[in-house]
């Protein structure tokens, strides 16, 4: 095996260098910042609060489900809690998580750019997010909403007496934040790559963010339209979705899932991007089948638009249209499988490190695989009739969203934390958290697959006694999971003050973000980098990076 003494290279890091954190001070310097890095931090702060809030509602649900009787919460409270859990986690945590935090911070640096293409629009996105979140939180204070995050009609327009309007308005606003972020990323990736950074030299995280941004830009407006129609029907009683007014409730489901299925890919594509970065960095190796992995992101983004009605196989669509949507759903499984196989194969003859980000990502690959293969069950029409709307579905999408997207978000946070803050977190505690999250997650959600197949419907406040054992396992797992998520909150904050100084490149990874100071200067680089290497080409890149720094 070859080895390069890259860590002997002394990077020049003048002690008094100004970075983006100490370039200016005060609340206004944050609230009016146009620096993509600071906006990334603002998002990180906001979505962390949302994650804690959504997690609280989840924990209360799991406690309620410890016993078959509905004894801890009333039915209405339980229904509000699962609704708020879904709305907060999807619209206010998962969708912005990796793009708005890590994408905002890392993407321009990976491109060798000084900022995103539209810094002011980037700030506007965060304000839109905050306004949307304000309405979301206001609704909680006013008494909650109980429609489920799906807002199905006619329940949401005629039968729910609660704050459907405020919630949908919040989701409507936050959608524009997502659209603008997508637009900003697309333009930045097209226009602001460093000299020599051709498309096929881009890190796979950039490819994944590009595919995500396309979906954000094209799908989110449909959600906005749908929610406006919903609000119009609720306020002025124009019959669009409500059959009593001459509308069609299935039209709502079509429109809702036309956005919300692609939204699944808004959440998982960035996670795949992080996985590719981390696997490359912690094997010190080119990702196996770079082009296959890059194009599979675009294939997922495209095919993701063609499968929405697989949420509606028992809803009342014709058997022939169900067949077409089932067929197309199997197509979208192919590019996901390509990625899993390529990540696994990258380990072969790699230099595999077991550091925290890699532990999270190895967990991610396993959990995403299980989420993916259980999707094959749900796409099989005759089997879906039995398992849809049961805990099988709940388990499936949590394996994708939590086992996939959240694990990858935590991996990304740990991987880029030294770059963002300039500090190292305590490795031992971080590895412990990765293990707790993995174990707790499986104990929480694996029993739910069985629970679903034996017939427990989702969104049940009370359930038949024979379902109890599996529910107790699930609740026990959720407690471990909560501990696993609480740990990073503590040690990451601790590291801000007490963590070791990270240096320019603590992982010995390659990529433009590892050539600049930690934390980076306000303009990211002291001079515009010139890229002469292929993505993840370790020998060439370390050599070039060393030379650059020695000049």
């Amino acid at each position, binding site marked *: 095996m070859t*080895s*390069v003494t890259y860590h002997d290279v002394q990077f020049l890091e003048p002690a008094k260098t100004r970075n983006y954190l100490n370039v200016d001070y005060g609340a206004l310097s944050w609230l009016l910042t146009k620096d993509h890095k600071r906006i990334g931090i603002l998002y990180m702060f906001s979505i962390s609060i949302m994650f804690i809030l959504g997690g609280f509602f989840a924990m209360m649900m799991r406690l309620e489900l410890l016993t078959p009787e*509905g004894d801890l919460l009333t*039915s*209405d409270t339980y*229904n509000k809690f699962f609704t708020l859990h879904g709305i907060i986690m999807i619209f206010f945590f998962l969708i912005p998580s990796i793009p708005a935090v890590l994408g905002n911070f890392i993407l321009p640096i990976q491109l060798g750019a000084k900022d995103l293409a539209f810094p002011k629009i980037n700030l506007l996105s965060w304000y839109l997010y905050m306004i949307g979140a304000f309405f979301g939180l206001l609704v909680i204070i006013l008494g909650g909403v109980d429609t489920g995050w799906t807002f*199905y009609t*006619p*329940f949401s327009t005629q039968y*729910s007496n609660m704050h459907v309007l405020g919630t949908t308005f919040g989701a409507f606003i936050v959608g524009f934040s997502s659209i603008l972020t997508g637009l900003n990323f697309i333009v930045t990736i097209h226009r602001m790559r460093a000299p020599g950074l051709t498309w096929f030299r881009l890190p796979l995280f950039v490819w994944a963010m590009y595919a995500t941004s396309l979906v954000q830009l094209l799908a989110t407006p449909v959600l906005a339209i749908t929610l406006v129609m919903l609000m119009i029907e609720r306020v002025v009683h124009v019959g669009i979705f409500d059959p*009593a007014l001459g509308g069609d*409730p299935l039209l709502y489901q079509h429109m809702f899932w036309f956005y919300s299925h692609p939204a699944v890919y808004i959440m998982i594509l960035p996670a795949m991007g992080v996985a590719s970065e981390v696997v490359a960095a912690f*094997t*010190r*190796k080119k990702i196996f*089948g770079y082009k296959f992995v890059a194009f599979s992101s675009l294939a997922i983004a495209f095919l993701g638009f063609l499968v929405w009605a697989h949420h509606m*196989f*028992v809803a*009342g669509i*014709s*058997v022939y249209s*169900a*067949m077409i949507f*089932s*067929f197309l759903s*199997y197509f979208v*499984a*192919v590019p996901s*499988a390509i990625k899993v196989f*390529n990540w696994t194969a990258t*380990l*072969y*003859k*790699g230099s595999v490190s077991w550091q925290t980000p890699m532990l999270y990502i190895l967990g991610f*690959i*396993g959990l995403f695989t299980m989420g993916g*293969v259980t999707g*094959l*069950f749900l796409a*099989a*029409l*005759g*089997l*879906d*009739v039995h398992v849809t*709307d049961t805990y099988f579905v709940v388990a499936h999408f949590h394996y994708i969203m939590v086992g996939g997207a959240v694990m990858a978000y935590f991996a990304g946070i740990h991987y880029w934390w030294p770059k963002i803050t300039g500090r190292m977190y305590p490795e031992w505690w971080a590895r412990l958290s990765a293990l707790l999250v993995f174990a707790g997650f499986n104990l929480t959600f694996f029993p739910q697959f*069985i629970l679903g197949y*034996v*017939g427990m*419907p989702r*969104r*049940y406040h009370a*359930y*038949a006694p*024979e379902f*109890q*054992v599996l529910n107790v396992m699930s609740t026990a797992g959720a407690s471990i999971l909560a501990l696993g998520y609480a740990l990073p909150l503590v040690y990451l904050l601790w590291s801000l003050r007490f963590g070791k100084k990270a240096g320019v490149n603590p992982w*010995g990874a390659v990529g433009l973000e590892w050539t600049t100071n930690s934390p980076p200067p306000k303009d990211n680089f002291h001079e515009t980098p010139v890229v002469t290497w292929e993505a993840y080409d*370790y*020998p060439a890149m370390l050599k070039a990076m060393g030379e650059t720094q020695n000049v």
Partner: protein
Amino acid sequence: MMLTDFPLFPEQASTMAKQVDALYIMLTVVTGAVSVLIFTMIFVLAIIYRRRPDNELAEEEEAPKALEIAWIVIPFIFFMATFVWGSWLYFELARVPDNALDIYATGKQWMWKFQHPSGQREINMLHVPVNRPIRVTMASEDVIHSLFFPYFRTKADVLPNRYRTLWFQATKTGRFHIFCAEYCGTLHSGMIGWVEVMEPTDYQKWLAGGTEGSLASQGEKLFEKYACATCHTNDATGRGPVLVGLFGKTVTLSDNRTVVADENYIRESILNPQEKIVKGFGPIMPTFQGQVNEEDLLKLLAYIKSLTPPPPSAPLSPQAGRGAGGEGPKG
């Protein structure tokens, strides 16, 4: 808690249950094996190629194209096989056997109401005979519900203002869960019941219990109450179309479209008669929207279905079969 409290499989209590379980088991075995293989690969590779010493670089290895092609093509073939199997099951679940016994169901926040052709009504309880296909025709009075029989491996969403059907054939007697599977508000988790599967003789005994007359005869009374017969006479002289023998026939409308007179057509023609006018008739029928509730609609439907033309030599019987039966797959 004992091991019996830990179910891995729901009971197989219908003809379809074994078939659905077969696909489930196949998928579990194959995807389970592939997942375990991937986990093992990850674990073994991550140990064999673990980093030592700290500054070690990887060997560069170009990916063989054949491998990439293999792991695209082989899963895809498996996916397509699963697709075909799943679709075949779905068609089986949609195709109602011809000799099915009709049951009518109404979903309402938060209860299930069932009506039998012989006139019995029950709430959150459904009595059916074993080994006989049962077709449930259903609609909702309010929001969307979903009628779910986990031990029969079937469910269907129940929509307001539209009839949908599902069918099952129970293979063992006993009590089995009925759940509402589509979130419908406060007591969604209380919208549950039992289906009691009985021996045919016990079912006959149960049917003999108190009733207000068959569903069709109750419908006939409503037909008189709403004075439908004023226009819908039994010969071609009335101001409305003849209803005898209508169900399942193709009807030509005033704009020359043709529709099949199925449950949804009859429902719409009662509630919103102006929508589809039969060719040769005027738009004179008043709407009954808001006047006839879901259960009465089902009674009227049962009555209209029962109106079959008398065979040349036999006397008219209100209980005669309902003519053209096969309505084909319905999603």
